[in-house]
């Protein structure tokens, strides 16, 4: 296989592998769209003031039209603009939670996996197991309801429920890599525990961790939306997708646009990240041909 190996160089090849599946490229652009919209919402939104508190009964509950592409809600706010601003909260939820749970979960799993078969492993993994047996959504709801609802609060709740899965993933990776020949070789050379854990084992765990992260951002955002659907996320008048769906639910089916467009937006984000995650999975795979 030497000849085939030489034909590949890393980044160019990674992009090649990613783009072989056209659908992932679509996902990439979907996510790119969400990010751009979130960042530039004040500039891109047609009615930026709609994002906050605004009362404009003249324009209330108007169906989608050329002036208001997604229609308006009962307070007269432009739904398209609100959705665009809501992307911000969604991304903060998704990226923020991931940024919290991945380092924590990976460290825990790495440690437990390195000491596989010992007392330390048992203690750490049993604690993790306790978290895993509780249904994530219920756990998040329970934690979120403990204090005053806010974006940060709901992020903490989701993080609390979600971190053990990263611990588990890293644990299973670590415990199998632990027995690989190159780890034995490092031990024979005389390398210490810290070096072996962080410089030798961890880099080999990263591929599935990255894939999981990419695939899951969408679902984390969904869980965040679920929390805000029941009122435990960002509080009004801030635009949040889940809240918008629940506020508009009572006006279905007559003023359908108030719930449906935010719901479609949630679906769009989740789908985009899923497709992107698929592409990332292909990118980090080690197949040659």
């Amino acid at each position: 296989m030497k000849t085939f190996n030489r034909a590949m160089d890393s980044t160019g090849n990674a992009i090649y592998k990613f783009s072989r599946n056209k659908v992932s490229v679509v996902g990439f652009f979907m996510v790119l769209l969400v990010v751009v919209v979130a960042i530039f919402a004040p500039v891109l939104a047609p009615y930026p003031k709609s994002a906050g508190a605004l009362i404009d009964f003249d324009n209330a509950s108007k169906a989608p039209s050329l002036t208001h592409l997604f229609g308006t809600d009962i307070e007269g706010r432009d739904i398209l603009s609100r959705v665009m601003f809501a992307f911000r909260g969604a991304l903060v939820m998704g990226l923020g939670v991931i940024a919290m749970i991945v380092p924590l979960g990976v460290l825990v799993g790495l440690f437990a996996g390195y000491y596989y078969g010992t007392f330390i492993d048992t203690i750490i993994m049993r604690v993790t197991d306790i978290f895993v047996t509780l249904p994530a959504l219920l756990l998040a709801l329970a934690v979120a309801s403990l204090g005053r609802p806010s974006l940060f609060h709901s992020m903490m709740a989701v993080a609390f429920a979600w971190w053990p899965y990263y611990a588990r993933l890293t644990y299973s990776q670590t415990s199998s890599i632990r027995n690989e020949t190159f780890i034995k070789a490092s031990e024979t050379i005389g390398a210490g525990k810290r070096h072996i854990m962080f410089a030798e084992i961890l880099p080999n765990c990263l591929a599935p961790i990255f894939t999981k992260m990419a695939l899951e951002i969408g679902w984390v955002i969904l869980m965040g939306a679920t929390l805000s659907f029941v009122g435990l996320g960002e509080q009004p008048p801030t635009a949040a997708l889940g809240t918008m769906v629940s506020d508009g639910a009572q006006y279905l089916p007559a003023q359908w646009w108030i719930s449906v467009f935010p719901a479609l937006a949630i679906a769009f984000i989740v789908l985009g990240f899923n497709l992107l995650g698929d592409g990332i999975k292909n990118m980090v795979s080690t197949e040659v041909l």
Partner: protein
Amino acid sequence: MEELLKVENLKKYFPVNVASISHRRKTVDLKAIDGVSFYVNRGETVALVGESGSGKSTTADTILGLYKSTGGEIWFRDMDISTMVIAKRPLSLKKEIQVVFQDPGTSLNPRRTVGQSLEVPLRVHNIVEKGKVSERVKELLATVGLSPEYMDKYPRTIGGGERQLVAIARALAVHPSLVILDEPTSALDESMQAKIITMLVKLQTGLNLSYLFITHNLSLVRNVATRVEIMYLGKIYESAATLDFFTKPLHPYTQMLLSSVPVVTEAERKLKPKHIISTGEIPNPVNVPPGCGFCPRCPVKLKKCSEEDPPSVEIMPGHVVKCFLYDKGRANG
């Protein structure tokens, strides 16, 4: 001759759970190594030959301290290291005994470049001062005939033979006196194998290294080893200097091995024993039958072979066989 490594009656048993007839789980000992003795002198290449299940790799791992021995002694120079598992060994000892593993695909960390993998031994043992590490890595690569460009390459972009050269460079980085080579070329093509072996021989003379060469390739042993030890089911059944071994193979298993070796030229074909052909398979080391381990497959077995463990007899100086056929001490066979 300085005796560098001495292994005396070494044992390594692994407890395994076995389902017994009464369906109650029993713990039995898998006797991977069951009383192995040999030595390696300074500057020698001792070949430890055996097929899968013979225990040769376990022997290497136990000498390295990756396993804790169940019994017997391991002496390095004059130090008894039998109870020292790798974690308990002082850095100075770890320096002395190094290893090159069989599979070049897994012996280098796939996520580290060649240079990064070679830096590890240099840093751990403080071989050179911090600023000179990179330079030393290039020197190491040059010792094994690789250009400095290899420093930044990942293992997956270089061939199996080159990866083994890197593994050799890594082992040599700490200036060991004994290098255990566990089937270093079994996964390589013949031309690459020739390159690696030639390199190893050159390095041995240049650096006064001693090799414990583990392999199943008898043709290679013929051209490389000073002495040969034949292992089967955890015990050594024949031990001799290379030339003696190949001109006069004594043990039935040795003869079976030699008759099975595929050869290319007519000259070699004439050297193979014709009267013994390979039959049977090595039994599961969990179920070692009583008596001689080779007895079930042996075409010339005697009655007592299935009852008693044969003694090791020195037929000629330096040539030892573990077999009743050569045991003149007892009158009736």
